[in-house]
């Protein structure tokens, strides 16, 4: 890839330790403070600032408080729609998950390259999305077994399954259940990676075409640039949708654990 005009669309995903913390470790595991970790901290801090702005607790809310209450209300209605009244106790988790992923996606899309910084989207790393997916899946398992005990296994036998079909259905349902954390984590990782690669490839077209001559620059370069504008808008949409999908699927899975069909 290094040959393609010296622009490597995958370089944006490279993790680099910052501030000389390369060898920071706990129990033999490296915990260097990387650019990825920096964006995780940024997402957490921005989210904290956002929610703090909505903590005025006024009866007649201002704009900021309205925005924060809109987000919590959105998660609340999502959980009530998918889980029912029992879903309210998951608001803190699903809200944290949704807002954290949303801000990670959006912060990674900021055009910080213009001021010389390197934007990084940690949701384009399956090490990060995988942890989030496993967390959601663990909550489903914990709630399911805590609430229903071994009866939770009846989740894998859909209601009304004929008895001779159970030996066949059970493994299929079990596998589709076990695939959930992978589909949850990989979906976000793939969507974010693909979008960012596409943007970088198109940006590479613009730069390489412009370098190749005025004719190429005006035809291929400007066409790619116009396409980039549209795809950038699409990426903002994808950033929101993927965060929503993650939260939605988490609440759907929680519903299985909470209500067990």
């Amino acid at each position, binding site marked *: 890839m290094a040959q393609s005009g010296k622009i490597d669309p995958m370089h944006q995903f490279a993790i680099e330790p910052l501030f000389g913390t390369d060898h920071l470790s706990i129990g033999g595991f490296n915990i260097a403070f990387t650019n990825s970790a920096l964006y995780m901290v940024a997402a957490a801090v921005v989210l904290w600032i956002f*929610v703090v702005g909505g903590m005025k607790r006024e009866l007649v809310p201002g704009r900021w408080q309205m925005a924060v209450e809109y987000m919590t209300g959105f998660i609340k209605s999502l959980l009530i729609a998918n889980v029912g009244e029992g879903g309210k106790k998951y608001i803190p988790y699903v809200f944290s998950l949704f807002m954290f992923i949303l801000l990670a996606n959006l912060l990674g899309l900021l055009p910080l390259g213009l001021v010389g910084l390197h934007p990084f989207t940690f949701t384009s790393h399956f090490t990060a999305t995988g942890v989030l997916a496993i967390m959601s899946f663990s909550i489903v398992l914990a709630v399911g077994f805590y609430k229903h005990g071994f009866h939770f296994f009846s989740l894998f036998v859909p209601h009304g399954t004929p008895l001779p079909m159970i030996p066949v259905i059970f493994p299929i349902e079990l596998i589709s259940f076990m695939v959930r954390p992978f589909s949850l984590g990989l979906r976000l990782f793939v969507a974010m990676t693909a979008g960012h690669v596409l943007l970088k490839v198109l940006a590479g077209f613009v730069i390489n075409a412009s370098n190749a001559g005025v004719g190429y620059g005006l035809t291929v370069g400007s066409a790619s640039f116009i396409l980039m504008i549209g795809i950038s808008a699409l990426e903002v949409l994808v950033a929101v949708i993927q965060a929503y999908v993650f939260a939605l699927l988490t609440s759907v899975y929680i519903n299985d654990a909470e209500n067990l069909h």
Partner: protein
Amino acid sequence: MPQIAQIAETYSSQIFWLLLTFGFVFFVIGLGMVPKVQATADARDAKITGDLDAAKAAFARADEAEADYRARDAANRAAAQATLAKAKAEAAKASEVRLAAADAEIAGQIGAAEARIKAASDAALAEIETVAADAARDMVARISGVDASDEAARNAVKAALAHG
């Protein structure tokens, strides 16, 4: 693909910092702040619902008061009409009694007056008979020189009066 190429040296750092930051987000923001935000929104919803209910209740009370007022008004009207009808009936009865009394009195007076008139006219008639008989006797005496008896004159006058 750095995600795969770098996984061996970065996975522990990624997981560590993700758990740390998401832990902060979940415990501080999710558990610490979101319920307060939600409580504010819920309190507002509750207040709005409460106010609406109070307004509805007030409406219901107003309707009730109006219905009550209407019922009392109707009752008062009915009572007033009944009193009026009773007063009218009493007044009509009283005036009837007085009218009857007045009628009776008037009838008495008329009867008495008629009797007086009859007596007066009888007296006048009797006087006319006597005067006519005298006049007839005078006329007979003057014309024929015969002195007609009082009896005959009187009968002749009576006959003439009956025919006249």
